[in-house]
């Protein structure tokens, strides 16, 4: 629709644009601010999201000004260790793209290999297409995308799903945005063996691991959302907890923190209930004591680590 020659002359009357108004109308100021507040750390990710949002906004204005504009390729890949916020950011991304009108509906369909790849000949194509149909107008989020490709089996049905995806990613760029996610190294080798994917993806975004200070802020944010707060001593205990937990196996960034928070709530409740003869006040109910943190098995060598292997 953009390459109609007379469209430019008819609409070139607009020459001035109030950028602030445009950004607010598209809802990106709000969304970016929310992203800033609700997601701790992730500086490189936030910067990249802002750049993409800016590009989309300018692109939209250019279109109205009658300047040459081509719909940008928006397919992305998110790489990073477990629990670094990839899924969370993908959901936000859909909102931003929808606000700017680059996807028409803004739904996110989140899938893994099993949703796309079938069990027998002729099963894969309809399955993949079914998912694609649902994702049209929104974002298709493929978690752990490398499972689509089984290098050890060249007859694997995953290849069929890959081919359909590649075709749609190329030919229906205005209809849906594909986001691939997974752990760093495995994604790299996945892209190496599927160069088609690599070249169709415009934005490769890496999610860094969180620093200890960031993990603490994340913990406090999660506790606040659930109506709890750490006492000063408990805060110190939790700092120690983070330092220890990070060195133990199966550490998965913010997700480990979320699990820790859930177990701390259990221990707090247990502590409160253990003395039935006392009167509780609101402060008792909200406050996490150091004992609730220190009872964790992380402090005694990390049996907790085994349990949090499954998120």
């Amino acid at each position, binding site marked *: 629709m953009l390459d109609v020659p007379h469209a430019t002359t008819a609409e070139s009357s607009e020459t001035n644009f109030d950028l602030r108004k445009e950004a607010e109308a598209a809802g990106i100021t709000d969304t970016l601010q929310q992203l800033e507040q609700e997601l701790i750390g992730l500086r490189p990710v936030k910067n990249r999201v802002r750049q993409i949002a800016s590009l989309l906004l300018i692109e939209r204005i250019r279109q109205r000004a009658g300047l040459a504009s081509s719909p940008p390729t928006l397919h992305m890949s998110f790489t990073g260790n477990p629990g670094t916020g990839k899924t969370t950011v993908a959901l936000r991304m859909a909102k931003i793209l929808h606000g700017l009108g680059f996807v028409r*509906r803004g739904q996110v369909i989140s899938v893994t290999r099993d949703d796309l790849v079938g069990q027998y000949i002729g099963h894969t194509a309809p399955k993949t297409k079914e998912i*694609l149909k649902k994702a*049209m*107008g929104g974002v298709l989020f493929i978690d752990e995308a490398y499972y689509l490709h089984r290098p050890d089996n060249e007859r694997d049905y995953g290849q069929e799903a890959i081919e359909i995806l590649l075709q749609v990613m190329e030919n*229906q760029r205005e*209809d849906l945005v594909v986001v691939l996610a997974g752990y760093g190294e495995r994604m790299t080798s996945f892209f190496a063996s599927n160069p088609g994917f690599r070249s169709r993806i415009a934005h490769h975004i890496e999610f860094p691991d969180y620093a200890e200070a960031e993990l603490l802020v994340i913990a406090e944010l999660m506790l606040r959302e659930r109506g709890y707060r750490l006492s000063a001593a408990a805060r110190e205990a939790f700092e120690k907890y983070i330092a220890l937990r990070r060195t133990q196996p199966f550490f998965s960034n913010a997700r480990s923190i979320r699990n820790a928070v859930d177990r701390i709530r259990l221990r707090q409740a247990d502590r409160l209930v253990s003395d039935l003869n006392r009167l509780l006040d609101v402060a008792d109910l909200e406050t996490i004591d150091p004992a609730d943190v220190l009872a964790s098995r992380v402090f005694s060598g990390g049996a907790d680590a085994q349990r949090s292997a499954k998120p």
Partner: protein
Amino acid sequence: MKLTQGCFSFLPDLTDEQITKQVQYCLTNGWAVNIEFTDDPHPRNTYWEMWGLPMFDLQDAAGVMMELAECRRVYGDRYIRISGFDSSHGWESVRISFLVNRPPQEAEFELVRQEVGGRAIRYTTIRKPAAHASS
């Protein structure tokens, strides 16, 4: 002769852009969208064949248009229609139905009268054989 069945059939054939808008209207209303095809477009033939399953969980018409493109590729020489089924209580019926594809050679029908007892008349719609239709 141009077959006229369902909505919009006295208008020029809908463009794909117009079909997309109608489909989006159906989806926005929560109707299940069906693609059906047949080589027997007799007005009394209500049973067309379905192309895939009803599409009731899509957000965007592009998904339906993808299926339509595929259906046209396979059955481009037949009639194809799109219908929107409203499953909500009290409706439970097709709310819209329109043609989206015609064969290059349209089917032709003829109305045959038969006089029966008491000068009553019976009407029958019969399809003209293809060879006849092409002349």
